[in-house]
């Protein structure tokens, strides 16, 4: 029996082997740019697998960043949550683009001092939601959606000039900058705070204990169940030759994996419950970690409130 190699494409089928021809065929379009072979859209199996690995990558990256010794990492988690909420509310009340941009510059400054990779930070903020917002909001800059003072006339309709209006452009600028500021603020908190500390802080800020326990345990079991999902999809991928078809069988497979996951989850919750009860759980949980608020944390919260007040005051000044 001759040795078939992976390099052997369909062109070399003259070599007779016992291996079926389809097994020797190279995978087409492995390169996402589509420079070799024809470009395929990812199947539902690949998309789900990629989603799972993206989740793990992001979580591990956040935990790494949270352990760096920057400015925000040293501040108490409760102080950070309060400061973020104050600034978020302030950002949502601002009426001018300039004030929002000032707040955005502030988040960049804090990101740099917290040793976040700035390129990554900017990319993470702007990629997807603000860019998506820009596209979505584009028609709203035209006079057909937002009537008002026309800045640039594009066409006329029965003698009426139509085009970009100053009101539409202002509105688009406001929404996009507000979205970017809000995402930056939330990202600053979640990237610089380990998940466990974030939850403990939520608990001490008055979120009911039951919810905090559910969230923290759910976070732990996401990764266990994610392992099951990845295994099911990887085995499907390895059993499939050629392209995944999006047919009835594929939909039945998605239903079966989700259904099997429900079965696993049910079984797991019963076991976890018994394990907890046998270790003395009676419906109340206690934590070993105690938070101590230092003077620097109070200074941080006061500084955040001052920033919020300053932008709000500047906003009023510019608005009138």
């Amino acid at each position, binding site marked *: 029996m001759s040795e078939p190699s992976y390099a052997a494409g369909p062109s070399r089928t003259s070599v007779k082997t016992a291996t079926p021809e389809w097994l020797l065929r190279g995978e087409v379009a492995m390169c996402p740019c589509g420079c070799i072979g024809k470009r395929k859209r990812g199947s539902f199996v690949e998309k789900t697998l990629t989603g799972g690995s993206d989740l793990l990558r992001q979580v591990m990256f956040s935990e790494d960043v949270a352990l760096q010794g920057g400015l925000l990492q040293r501040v108490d988690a409760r102080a950070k949550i309060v400061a973020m909420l104050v600034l978020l509310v302030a950002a949502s009340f601002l009426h001018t683009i300039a004030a929002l941009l000032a707040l955005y510059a502030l988040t960049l400054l804090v990101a740099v001092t917290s040793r976040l990779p700035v390129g990554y930070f900017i990319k993470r903020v702007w990629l997807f939601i603000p860019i998506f917002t820009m596209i979505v909001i584009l028609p709203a800059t035209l006079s057909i959606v937002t009537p008002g003072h026309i800045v640039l006339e594009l066409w006329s309709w029965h003698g009426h000039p139509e085009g970009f209006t100053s009101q539409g452009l202002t509105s688009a600028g406001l929404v996009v900058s507000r979205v970017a500021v809000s995402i930056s603020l939330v990202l600053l908190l979640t990237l610089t705070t380990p998940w466990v500390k974030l939850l403990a802080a939520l608990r001490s800020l008055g979120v009911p204990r039951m919810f905090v326990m559910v969230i923290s345990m759910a976070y732990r079991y996401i990764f266990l169940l994610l392992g099951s999902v990845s295994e099911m999809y990887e085995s499907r991928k390895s059993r499939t030759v050629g392209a995944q078809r999006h047919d009835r069988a594929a939909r039945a497979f998605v239903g079966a994996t989700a259904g099997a996951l429900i079965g696993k989850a049910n079984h797991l*919750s019963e076991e976890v419950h018994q394990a907890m009860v046998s270790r003395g759980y009676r419906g109340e949980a206690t934590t070993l970690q105690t938070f101590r608020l230092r003077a620097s944390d109070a200074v941080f919260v006061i500084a955040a409130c001052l920033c919020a007040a300053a932008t709000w005051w500047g906003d009023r000044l510019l608005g009138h």
Partner: protein
Amino acid sequence: MHIPDGYLSPQTCAVGFAVAVPVWAVAARRVSSVVKTRNVPMLAIFSALSFLVMMFNVPIPDGTTAHAVGGSIIAICLGPWAAVIAVSVALAFQALLFGDGGVLVYGVNCVNMAIVLPFVAYGVYRLLSGRAALASRRRVVAAAVGAYVGINAAALAAAVELGIQPGLFHTASGAPLYSPYHLSQTIPAMALPHLTVAGAAEAILTGAVLAYLQRADIGRLVANHRGVALTEADVVLRPARLSPARVAFAAMGVMALLTPLGLLAPGGAFGEDSPKQLDLHSLGLSSVPAGLDRYNGFWSHTLLGGYGFSSGDHADAAYILSALVGIVVVGSVAFAVSKVFVAIGRKHGRDRPADHDADTDSDTDLERSGTHV
């Protein structure tokens, strides 16, 4: 459907939390009432599951893939209250870990996806599945339809929240401060993808999971389907719970809710105009007929003349009050009349058997039951 921060005004976000917080409190109580120690691990693991189900790519018949929310299948397996908490926790993860959906908007997002969606989906599912057996095909269809209706209801709620922003919040020059699109633009924009792709994803996932559980693991469904027969053979035909009184009340409720439609219709009803509004010229008359003029306004001692207070204040409140008074008065008159009829019928029934006492003919029985009805 995950609305990011910045699209909604802080006032709308506050309303979102004001609606969501009481529902969370009730949901926590409802879920904890069974076994105190079991709820936390159960909810935690199903929240994790809900988060993962949102990551599943569902192949849609047109060749693309879409994400499902998964609130419907959790509502069917565990009940809508557990689904409220599981989906809310999953949304919290998405907001904090991925920036998918905002933090201030979290309450509003929960109202749409964790409250409206599971409750609507579960309600439609219960309504359509009726008393069908747990393993029946009808339940699969009911689950898929419920999921489809549920996600579209959630999308409509999101469209309304976005669409009211430009009218309520804008600068002095008229530039919208938040989402700039009006209701007439947001509702079609949200309805189109959700009636097609996203609705299909949710319906396919829910139907397929239910079909799988029926096939492989029907025990999981029993917990939330108490009193439902397992197979077609076990279905017990019980008398319908639709008593005439319930049907009558339901019909009256529907009619009362539909009345405002009449206000939209143009013009007035034929023969109800006051004499002053008559178009005398087209009728070939020179003046209002004497009899009509005399007897019109013969009775003017009405409580709520013209469905309003005599002073003419609070027109809307008076109109609703008139409607309520009307429903109550007509209802009680109809009730009294039926009571009188029943009493007369009973009296007849008591008189009659005296003549037929010895007679055990089945005809008499029929006749007697006839008089009672």
